[in-house]
């Protein structure tokens, strides 16, 4: 299938912090929209349709929260819809915006949103109610335990240890120290990560993402609009989504479709995007990866699902200096990634925006030199919903 060309002409993001008390939630959403439009050099009047990412309503405390923020977005009177694919929402919304343009009905689509996770004092209790009402809610599962289980299984299957996870944290915190928008900006050492307190073993505090507050937005345009206005967007060359079983207990044992240690369903989503983009060897063809990994352990198997390393082999490559800015091979999460900044609703959107900045050479201190091809991904649910994208500075053969 030939894709219609859709490009990214604007990306805006705030400085992410723990708490913002100077603005209401709609005012924060407005920041994301305004920054994206300013970066694109257009006004809201130029926008044909708006897609809004928001994961659980409960975290901002208003049901159907999209209806509350429409005035702040400037979307009144425009085609408008909200996506909620859990943690993948921010990226699913970008795919939805891509679809709006590729349908031929629209030329300019804004995706903008915000999150203030710290506004709910019981976020992990809320997130426990993601699970099955009959069987799982009586057990205190949450987003941390679900990934601790995965990390523990990965360690077992691939003879990996907590130091491997700590190396990811050290890399990402170093990258985030170069990114003025990142939430956690201080560097850490392997010893500090290993000594940080255990949340749910093997996940420790410094393996985990923060609960971030802030806003972000993207502007997508059709190729005809870009040409007419002499714009040079970052081009979306491939995209994919895939879903895994809800039941973590179905991801173990000899008859499982995929193992909870890995992200096989994400590998399928990457393959869908690679097929469209003409990527046959990501290790050679991809320059930079902005992949959603809220915990250090997740990044290891996402690198593998992206085809950048074989299963179980990413820790050795990391120890060898791969994935780090200025190091060998594909640079992974030069922004510091989700592990250093996680405003849930827009985390996936930021992955795409950072990838676009990289291929356009706009990433500043965390720019990967000469980056042309970037990949982005996001994860939602209980490691259940996967979105992927290939972004390139041009429309030539990859």
């Amino acid at each position, binding site marked *: 299938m030939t894709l219609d060309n859709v490009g990214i002409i604007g990306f805006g993001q705030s400085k992410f912090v723990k708490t913002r*008390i*100077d603005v209401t939630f709609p005012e924060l959403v407005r920041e994301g929209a305004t920054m994206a439009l300013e970066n694109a050099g257009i006004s809201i009047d130029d926008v044909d349709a708006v897609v809004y990412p928001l994961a659980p309503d*409960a975290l901002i*405390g208003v049901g159907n929260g999209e209806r509350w923020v429409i005035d702040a977005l400037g979307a009144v009177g425009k085609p408008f819809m909200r996506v909620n694919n859990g943690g993948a929402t921010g990226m699913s919304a970008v795919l939805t915006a891509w679809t709006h343009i590729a349908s031929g009905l629209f030329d300019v689509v804004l995706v903008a949103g915000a999150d203030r996770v710290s506004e709910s*004092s*019981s976020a*992990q*209790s809320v997130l*426990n109610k993601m699970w099955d*009402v*009959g*069987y*799982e*809610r*009586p*057990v*205190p*599962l*949450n987003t*941390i*335990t679900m990934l*601790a*289980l*995965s990390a*523990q*299984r990965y360690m*077992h299957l691939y003879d990996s240890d907590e130091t491997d996870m700590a190396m990811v944290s050290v890399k990402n915190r170093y990258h985030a120290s170069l990114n003025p928008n990142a939430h956690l900006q201080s560097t850490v050492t392997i010893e500090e990560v290993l000594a940080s*307190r*255990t*949340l*749910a*073993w*093997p*996940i420790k505090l410094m393996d985990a993402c923060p609960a971030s507050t802030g806003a972000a937005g993207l502007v997508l345009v059709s190729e005809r609009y870009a040409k007419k206005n002499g714009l040079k967007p970052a081009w979306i060359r491939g995209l994919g989504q895939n879903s895994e*079983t*809800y*039941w*973590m*207990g*179905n991801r*173990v*044992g*000899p*008859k*499982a*479709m995929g193992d*909870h240690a890995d992200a096989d369903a994400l590998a399928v989503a990457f393959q869908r995007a690679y097929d469209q983009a003409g990527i046959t060897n990501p290790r050679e063809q991809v320059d930079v990866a902005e992949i959603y990994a809220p915990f250090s352990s997740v990044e290891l198997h996402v690198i593998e699902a992206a085809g950048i390393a074989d299963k179980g082999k990413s820790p050795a490559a990391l120890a060898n200096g791969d994935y780090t800015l200025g190091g060998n091979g594909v640079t992974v999460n030069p922004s510091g990634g989700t592990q250093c900044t996680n405003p849930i609703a827009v985390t996936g959107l930021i992955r795409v925006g950072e990838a676009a900045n990289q291929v356009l050479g706009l990433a500043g201190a965390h720019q990967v030199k000469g980056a042309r091809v970037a990949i982005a991904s996001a994860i939602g649910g209980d490691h259940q919903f996967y979105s992927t994208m290939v972004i390139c500075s041009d429309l030539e053969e990859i």
Partner: protein
Amino acid sequence: MTDAKFYEQTWDLQYKHALGETTSRFLEGLTQQKIWGRRTTDGRVLVPARSYDDQTHMPTGEWVEVGNSGTIEMFTIVYEPFKGLPVPPYALVYVLLEGADTALVGYLKGLDLKNQKDAIAALGIGTKVYVHFSKTPVGSAADYWFELSK
């Protein structure tokens, strides 16, 4: 400049979730110290029992009673307190019971978790455990937990 104010709100939404016949029968089985699964059209036994299989997208059929012992497939020990969740530490395990093709989640009790290193050393993938049933079952998934096999 006016100080920014806060406004406290609680969402006290109440639900009475319909569990359906299959889950209801599974929970009823716990009060009789039985763990029930359901067989899929491709022959797998789903535990806990579900009326449909998300992999084949087909209804499940035959009820299958599975064993009360099995092996740990994954585990974590929680040390961080979370508002609204139990006081730590506590251990969560997914256990593949004898005759089951999917793992059942539950607490692992009866192990001293205070010393993290020792607790982790006592647990592993493949560690044998058995189901312990509550003497005062209430008909929910809290009516069982796992303990290490002697």
